[in-house]
């Protein structure tokens, strides 16, 4: 007996041939010197908080932002440069409790699902057209960090913001090696399933805080 695949493929291959055609021209948008303004405007329109901060100051600025929100615990990635900066800067003074995502999800699930208030991750880049953060989670900075806690803080280098997804995919050669998971995040979790009324945080983070950093770390 032939397999389902064989039977499906036989029908597809037996169908009349149709020619593929050249793709018509299409130019993705470019924003020139308005790139950052567009990135910020689109993210803010999607209900995210955007802060432009000198690279040396972001952990301190974040401490103030989170203090205003009464955040008690923050999930962080201790082995990343972002996580190390945070741990170092918050070691002195009054800061939220840092929770390290340093083991398998199976060993930390309850805490992740129910307990931490916020998480801090790096974003690989940004996309101005749609106000999107580009995340490529890694073994040291796992996928659920940007998803489970009620507040997601993403740190993105201003120089890594591009105009469009099309530009990002081609300039960075994504098709030559995709990670386990790549995600575009364009605001906090939302739904309009009930009478088209927008509500935030139905499953993912209720708040998205974007720290756009510029310049060198001193």
């Amino acid at each position, binding site marked *: 007996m032939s*397999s389902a*695949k064989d*039977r*499906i*493929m036989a*029908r*597809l291959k*037996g*169908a*009349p041939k*149709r*020619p*593929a*055609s050249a*793709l*018509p021209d*299409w*130019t*993705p948008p470019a924003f020139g010197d308005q790139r950052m303004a567009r990135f910020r405007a689109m993210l803010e329109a*999607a209900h995210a908080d955007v802060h432009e901060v000198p690279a040396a100051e972001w952990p301190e600025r974040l401490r103030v932002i989170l203090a205003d929100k009464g955040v008690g615990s923050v999930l962080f990635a201790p082995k990343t440069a972002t996580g190390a900066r945070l741990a170092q800067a918050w070691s002195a003074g009054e800061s939220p409790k840092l929770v390290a*995502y*340093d083991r398998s*999800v*199976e060993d930390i699930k309850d805490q992740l*699902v129910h307990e931490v208030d916020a998480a801090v991750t790096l974003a690989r880049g940004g996309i101005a*057209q*749609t*106000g*999107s953060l580009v995340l490529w989670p890694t073994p040291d900075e*796992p*996928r659920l960090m940007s*998803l*489970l806690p009620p507040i997601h803080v993403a740190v993105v280098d201003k120089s890594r913001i591009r105009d469009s*997804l*099309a530009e990002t*995919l*081609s300039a960075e050669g*994504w*098709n030559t090696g*995709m*990670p*386990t*998971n790549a*995600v*575009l*995040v*364009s605001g*906090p*979790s939302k*739904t*309009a*399933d*009930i*009478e*088209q*009324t927008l*509500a935030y*945080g*139905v499953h*993912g983070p209720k708040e998205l805080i974007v720290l756009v950093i510029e310049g060198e770390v001193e």
Partner: protein
Amino acid sequence: MAVEARKSDFTGKAHVALNDPKLRANFRRAMDGLMTKRAAQFADAEEWTSLRARGAAIRANALAKLPELLELLEANLTRNGIKVHWAETVAEGNAIVLDILQKAGAKTVIKGKSMVSEEMHLNAHLEANGITPVESDLGEYIIQLAGEAPSHIVMPCIHMNKVEIAELFADKIKNLTYTEDVDELCAAARAALRGAFAGADAGISGVNFLVAETGSLVLIENEGNGRLSTTLPPLHIAVTGIEKVIERLEDVAPLLSLLPRSATGQIITTYVNMISSPRKPGEKDGPKEVHLVLLDNGRSRVYSDVQLADTLRCIRCAACMNHCPVYTRVGGHTYTFTYPGPIGKLLSPQLEGLDCAGDQVHASTLCGACAEVCPVQIPIPDLLARLRTEAVHPTSVAVKGGGSARSLADSLGWGGWTAMYSSPLVYKISTRVMGLVGNLMPASLPMLKQWTSVRTKPKFAAKSLHQLARERGFSNE
């Protein structure tokens, strides 16, 4: 869960829906909002034209190369560690999913939104085999609580208003006090579903695009439930149709610029989730196993007809239904089968057969609003007209149930019509006779009744055009 009726009864259900003012108000409000938001996204006509031409060509090319791309996709997914399964029928698809779950010892499943799983009636199959599926998309969760089917492919509970949902939640969610506040309702769903996510043995999702060149699954969503379903449980099963494949990763960019803007008037969804592998050694989360079930269910048959295969270009944005004057008035449940609106009128008769869903190809005025907004340029009215023809004069094995609408009365009627118009003598006699007796025929005559039940009976003129012309002195040619 209700078992799907084998045959659609569009006319009967439409009359019920048309006389339900609450349902009509719910749809009217929703569709007006969606149309306005979409129009704002495509205000630049030049951009829309070039983007849509690109999107249509990407989908058309993917279909032109469908067998090769599916082979490439399977090879790349397999290399990436994602297991690929092929299902010729819904029953095969359900059996595959059940088998994967049983081998893993899974008892509870958390589901992201998937129309193909609706097409499979997967939930009913899992429940019958002792596995509990929990829908996590808010709209799907609501209709699962209500025991209903989706009435729209993007916004499943669009037929319900806030009060109906508030009553449902108060009834079904433990310890919840009645509230109509949308934020509180969402918070209640979040709280109820968090535990379900954490405890689920597996996650099931759909797929928006399958990228052949990289072996990636692309899923878009706003809530984060899709990411959770595909990240938190140890096992992820994606189900989708064989037609969802595209050739290159770069094709995602223009399609992604068309889909959410057409669907909900958003420039992008909150999350675009690209999955290319199960959890790798050293990674701390993500499913340890990822499976993709590719469902045919009639698609390869449709594919064998070059014209009708355009149906398979669809990217499921729902713009056609949002703009359809029929769908807006009768709502999604009138269509009986999984896919409602203009795309449903094309898909259901082709997947289920014209003998089961043939009435749907007539549930259209052919006004063309659907084709105008379709981001991949599916000529929906042309294809509906083609299916109307196939229902009486079958020409293609691609159409299941072709010829099923042929009836003796119709054949006699049209045969007489042809005879009358092909013979000057018969024509002359017929027009004379009809001029004399036509107005005496009662409107309730069986053949006339369908027309006259909703329209005034036309008046036959006492003299034919030929007679009038001759009286005015026009000679014969």
